[in-house]
């Protein structure tokens, strides 16, 4: 590219005045239109927010008055561990550690079993709900609606119903998580299956493979890494969800936690909350590592 050597050409050349006026007029009109559209969007959003605030009984004055209570609450559940006897304080704070650890283990096991059962069911349903593998629209429609119902009804509602039918205990939590997970994972799995490369499928069905053989040798190798990655993500969500299923009597650490909150045992609330947070963050980090490794070979290609 030739550079202009003449110093007069280096700087910006001013436009003729009438041309400049016309261009800046056009510019003002264009930005004005965009600005008006943005303002209208904001106005609509503000109107909706006011309506929602009315429906949700927002009381800013109460909020401002009581915001001190929030910090006071945080202060009360703050670890009562001093610098003088940190170990003794810690031991006193976690007086119920063995029992809590057992309940936490139960929570994680609930999440694991629920995720596993839900993933297996979602796995089966996803192949029926995928548009590129199933010819019958009626079957596909039924499978999709079923998954939608499983997904939309929150697991706590299932747990409430199951507690009455099966009795209290972690089995109820497992079933509730499993049904919700079936809906959530079934949808994601079906989307993965719909996005596969169809050439291996064509190749196998052209050489005489049955439907099951086609799914096993042409579809599964393409989707398994993605499926595992989604299932791990769901496992993390389910651990968080399982921690509160105990609120309705479905096992795990939730019941103990709710009791501590309701009876204002601030030390216990803080201790259990810290345990839940650490567990969730730990599982989050661990599953992220595994998911990166699963995604590895895909990215290299």
């Amino acid at each position, binding site marked *: 590219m030739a550079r202009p050597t003449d110093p007069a050409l280096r700087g910006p050349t001013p436009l003729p005045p009438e041309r400049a006026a016309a261009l800046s007029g056009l510019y003002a009109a264009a930005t004005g239109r965009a600005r008006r559209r943005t303002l209208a969007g904001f106005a609509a959003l503000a109107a*909706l927010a006011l*309506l929602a605030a009315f429906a949700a009984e927002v009381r800013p004055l109460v909020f401002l008055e009581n915001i001190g209570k929030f910090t006071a609450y945080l202060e009360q559940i703050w670890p009562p561990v001093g610098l003088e006897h940190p170990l003794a304080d810690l031991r006193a704070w976690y007086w119920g550690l063995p029992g809590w650890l057992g309940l936490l283990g*139960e929570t994680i096991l609930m999440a694991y079993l629920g995720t596993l059962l839900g993933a297996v069911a979602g796995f089966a349903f996803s192949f029926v709900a995928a548009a590129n593998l199933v010819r019958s629209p009626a079957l596909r429609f039924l499978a999709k609606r079923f998954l939608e119902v499983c997904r*939309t009804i*929150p697991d706590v509602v299932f747990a409430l119903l199951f507690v009455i*039918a099966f009795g209290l205990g972690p089995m109820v939590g497992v079933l509730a998580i499993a049904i919700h997970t079936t809906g959530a994972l079934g949808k994601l799995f079906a989307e993965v299956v719909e996005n596969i490369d169809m050439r291996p499928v064509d190749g196998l069905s052209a050489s005489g493979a049955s439907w099951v053989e086609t799914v096993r040798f042409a579809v599964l190798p393409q989707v398994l890494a993605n499926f595992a990655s989604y299932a791990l993500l769901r496992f993390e969500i389910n651990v968080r969800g399982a921690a509160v299923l105990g609120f309705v009597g479905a096992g795990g650490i939730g019941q103990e936690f709710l009791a501590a909150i309701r009876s204002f045992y601030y030390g216990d609330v803080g201790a259990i909350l810290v345990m839940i947070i650490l567990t969730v963050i730990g599982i989050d980090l661990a599953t992220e590592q595994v998911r990166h490794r699963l995604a590895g070979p895909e990215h290299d290609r």
Partner: protein
Amino acid sequence: MRAARPEALGAAARADLARLRARYPAQFRTDWAGRLRRLATLALLAGLAGFGIWQFDVSPARILHGLGRLGSFAVLMLPPSPEGHLWIFLHALAETLGIAFLGTLTAAVLAFPVAFLAARNVVPNPFAHFAVRRGLDVMRSVDVLIWALIWINVVGLGPFAGALAIACSDLGAFGKLFSEAIETCDRRPGEGVVASGGSALHRIRFGLIPGVLPVLASQVLYFFESNTRSATIIGIVGAGGIGQYLTELIRVLELKQVAFLVLMILVTVAAIDWISTRLRRAIIGPAAR
């Protein structure tokens, strides 16, 4: 040449298996190490599941008994009807939508500036974005119901506590998602702004925000839909919305009204799903799916 029928091709290949095996040994070799690894993984998964089933005392008898009772519940659910409480239920549904909308909006507005602090390409200081990120992680790992219990202590029972709870737990999620969107954003517009003499703030306003805004808006819409689902259960701890009726009616086994409430929730969520899909398409443009 006429194409042979696929079934015939498969049968021919099976009949000729020995010669195919001799001709392509690499394709037929058994991958023992891989197979062993897969078997070990499966055994581990199944073993843990078996331990859980034993630990939780799951027995076919218990499941059958429970299923029988569920079956009788299903009969009691028919036909779904509000039994005179339609207006109360509609009011609770409006409350639920208000909670979800306000919570999502508040979280998005608060997360927007925070996400820039947590993005590596805006704040190069590793300590700052590490601290912000861990803070967001903590907010995210506390479930909505726990947040609701905390806020009830502050603003009292009612939907306001629910909206605050959703705002808090979503703030963590949005902060993470937004900062990831900002980090993966195209660098070149920002470099252009800086090269033509813009300041750091100009770079963010004209180089980053136009690129990330559609992505963020689409994530917010997605969360609004999922928050409508969470807002339906937040009433279980007394934080407003349809959940408090759902809990009470399930406890007293008024299953016709429960079925009606569940249908209302299904229809509402489906409607919001439809609207947000359309809005997302309008925002992102038809190019992205």
